[in-house]
């Protein structure tokens, strides 16, 4: 036990706590004028996630990796059941009700998928066509199921696994070209048949927000105004006019960073970036005992990095509004829980190199 405490990465863990509780205080500010009590729920979820973190942390990893395909299959079946029976809430079937709380099942695909992919990546050296197809199947099935709910935010984020894999593994050039062609044609088809008008409007308004400033470009512009008007040092906690007078949309979830930018300015943003940088820097260097763990470290960290980047770019209009939260900070119990469970596996990988 003493060793566990000694080799536990306290710095990284502290950063996670700072992000999570910093998030709670931003959520408090976001709901300040509307008398919303999201922050109370968030406190509960963070505490619950920490309990789950330590439970997960104490579980041996070897059987987890061994059964990773099975776990992924089980989650996919859960997604299917939800698709078939799920109730529509706010235009999506992404939510599953458990009494008092709602759970977003799609968030819990991230870890099993990362585990399964990590296991699969250990089996070969170079990406060939057949392996690429297998990878596409592995990632594509859950992405499709989630897209059908529809929850485009999470399914888009899961696609980042592809980028990380291409970044790490050797690929035949011809396959890369084919991949680009495939991406383009899928995007085109998606645009023509899958995307709903409001989603198209979001993308169009991202391209030209001023033209859609009263409709779908509104969120983008208001978020940018919030961030920009924060200036160097911000307007002060609870004093952001964009947030307080409700110009900033979905400010406790997707645009929580805009609240930070408005109330704490460039200094606040820089501190947040610094915290994330340290987090990534340290976690990418976590020690591991086998290849599966190595791949998992890169896949999961890559996912967080990607989600962080998309969210941060979205807040200032560099990316379309897709409903993607800021990891560890934004409001959302499922998101927090899922990230802390993933973190628990990373911390366990790290400590295994000292303890075993």
């Amino acid at each position, binding site marked *: 036990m003493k060793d566990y405490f000694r080799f536990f990465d306290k710095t990284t863990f502290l950063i996670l706590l700072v992000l999570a509780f910093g998030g709670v205080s931003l959520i408090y500010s976001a709901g300040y004028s509307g008398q919303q009590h999201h922050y109370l729920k968030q406190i509960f979820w963070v505490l619950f996630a920490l309990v789950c973190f330590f439970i997960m942390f104490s579980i041996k990893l070897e059987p987890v990796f061994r059964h990773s395909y099975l776990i992924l299959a089980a989650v996919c079946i859960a997604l299917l059941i939800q698709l078939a029976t799920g109730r529509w809430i706010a235009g999506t079937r992404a939510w599953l009700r458990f009494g008092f709380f709602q759970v977003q099942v799609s968030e819990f695909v991230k870890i099993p998928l990362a585990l399964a992919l990590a296991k699969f990546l250990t089996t070969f050296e170079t990406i060939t066509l057949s392996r690429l197809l297998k990878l596409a199947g592995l990632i594509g099935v859950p992405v499709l199921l989630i897209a059908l709910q529809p929850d485009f935010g999470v399914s888009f984020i899961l696609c980042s696994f592809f980028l990380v894999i291409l970044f*790490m593994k050797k690929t035949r050039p011809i396959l890369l070209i084919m991949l680009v062609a495939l991406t383009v044609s899928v995007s085109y088809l998606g645009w023509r048949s899958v995307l709903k008008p409001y989603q198209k409007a979001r993308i169009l308004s991202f391209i030209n927000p001023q033209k859609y400033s009263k409709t779908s470009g509104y969120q983008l512009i208001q978020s*940018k105004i919030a961030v*920009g*008007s924060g200036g160097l040092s911000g307007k002060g906690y609870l004093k952001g006019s964009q947030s307080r*007078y409700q110009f900033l949309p979905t400010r406790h979830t997707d645009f929580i960073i805009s609240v930070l930018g408005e109330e704490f300015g460039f200094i606040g943003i820089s501190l947040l970036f610094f915290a994330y940088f340290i987090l990534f820097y340290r976690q990418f*260097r976590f020690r591991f005992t086998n290849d599966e763990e190595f791949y998992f470290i890169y896949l999961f960290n890559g996912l967080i990095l990607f989600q962080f980047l998309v969210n941060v770019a979205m807040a200032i209009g560099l990316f379309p509004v897709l409903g993607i939260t800021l990891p560890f900070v934004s409001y959302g119990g499922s998101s927090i829980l899922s990230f802390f469970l993933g973190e628990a596996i990373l911390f366990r990988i790290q400590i295994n190199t000292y303890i075993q």
Partner: protein
Amino acid sequence: MYIDRKKITPDIARRAARTTTVVLILIFLGMVFVYWNIQVLRYDYFRFRALQNIIKTVELEAPRGLILDRNRQVLAENRIDFTLYLIRESVTDWERTLKIASFLTGKSRSEIEKIIAKYKGNPKSYLIPLKDHFPLASVAYVESRIDEMPEFRIDLKPGRSYPQLGFGSHILGYISEVSDKELQNQSASGYHMGDSTGISGMEKQYERYLRGEKGTQTIIKDNQENVQQELSRVRPKIGQTLVLTVDLNLQRYIEELFQDIQGAAAVIDLTDGGIMALVSKPAFDPSIFSEAITPEHWNELMTMPDPPLRNKFIQGIYSPGSVFKIVMALTALSEGIITPQTSFFCGGELLVYDHIFHCAKSSGHGWMNLQSAIEKSCNIYFYNLGKRLQINTIARYARLLGLGETSRIDLPNEAGGLVPTTQWKERVFRQKWYAGETISVAIGEGSLNVTPVQMLRMISTVALRGRKPTPHLLDHIEKEGTTVYRFPANFETVPIPHALFEEVIAGMYRVVNGEGTGRLARVETLEICGKTGTSQIISKDNPRFKALAKEKRFIPNSWFACFAPREHPRIALVLLIENGGDAGLIAAPMAGQILNRIFQQ
């Protein structure tokens, strides 16, 4: 960073970590730069945009000025009024919104859509007034459900009220929403869509004094246009107070006399030209225009055969009838055609230019001089004058006495009337003037057309022996309790010798106090001088005259123009009763009643 071996070696891991660090540094530097650009370099722009979001300056409407009568009784004032507004920005379901709006206002869907369409050019956050005078019960209904229908808003607005319930409506006029056309003309003077402006009467004539100055309020508002905080406020300034020369009690008295009568009447104070009462019937209630007037109601008002909005006193055009004999008498005397003693014999009819002209008394009046001809209103006497005078000479004197020219009374849209001349006939009909036409004009018929206010001015000029007053309704304007403008008493001098007026006045005295046509106007204690006029609506030459004369609409109009007392006159009065028949029986006794009341008080 291609991992080129199946097994991950510490060396590969180290290389991967190094590459990843470089990527991380690049990504974070990039993001920091982008945020620096927005938050520091473009701070001023975004700060401005953020302020633009929350800070709004709204206009506060100014209450209109009061209108008081000469005894400071209130004729027009303000009251607090609720207005229902719609904010397009907050509408989620137009179908539902239109349904609710229709339910709340009682207006039809298409009417509401029409209102909304007018504000197309305004920002989506603009408050569109859907209904003024929103009833209190509905206010409570909307306020209690504001969460369910955030697109509706209720606000206070100063409203206009006329506590005299329709009395004096043609004096006061009415206000209404400023029209699109006026908006284009007057945009410079600060009118906005939805503002009220005077449309007729005093409300229009003195609009710029009554209007007041709008205030402004700078507020912090949220996304839903809810006021969060007031930053500054410039109070609106109430419009200036008009004090009129009108005597409300007299006004009511005359209007009540006119209850079942169509026509016009006015009383003038001869000392300064101030109008003490002005009646035009049918009348209207000015409050309906600032309240819920429906398009149907409006159309009905505008297309009625005798539209109540028309102020007959200044816009109605009539033959002056025998009252015009006063003008003829003065013309003939001034031109030296006759002396007061000149007599003509009346045998009931007269042959002039191969045409037989009749007197009202078919058996004839016998020998008539000027005074007796006025007293008996003998047509034959005046036909003889007509025979001896040029139409242009008559016209000159008619104009001198105020007929055929606008009185310049302080009311908008006064009609001009017509006193014919040879040039007029030439210009309009491209025909020569026939001498026979002058004979008709001599007894106030033919193409002569006057308004009651012109008749009032003429009788006033006679009463004042050649001093022609400018009638006016405004006495003075007050701003914060002090008089800022007083309507100047204005008299023009008419170049007719004083003595000639005395001759005519002597005749007019006999009209009432002798055996004259107006003897029913007589009041024991008062020396009233007057002249009756019964003006034909169809010509006696009309072959169907006998048949048509029985129809109500062809019954002659009755005039009575008078003043009192004979020496140092103080009051002049003109009555016009449409289709009243014999003026001596109808108009004269009413005039006596009115004058009696005025002088008893």
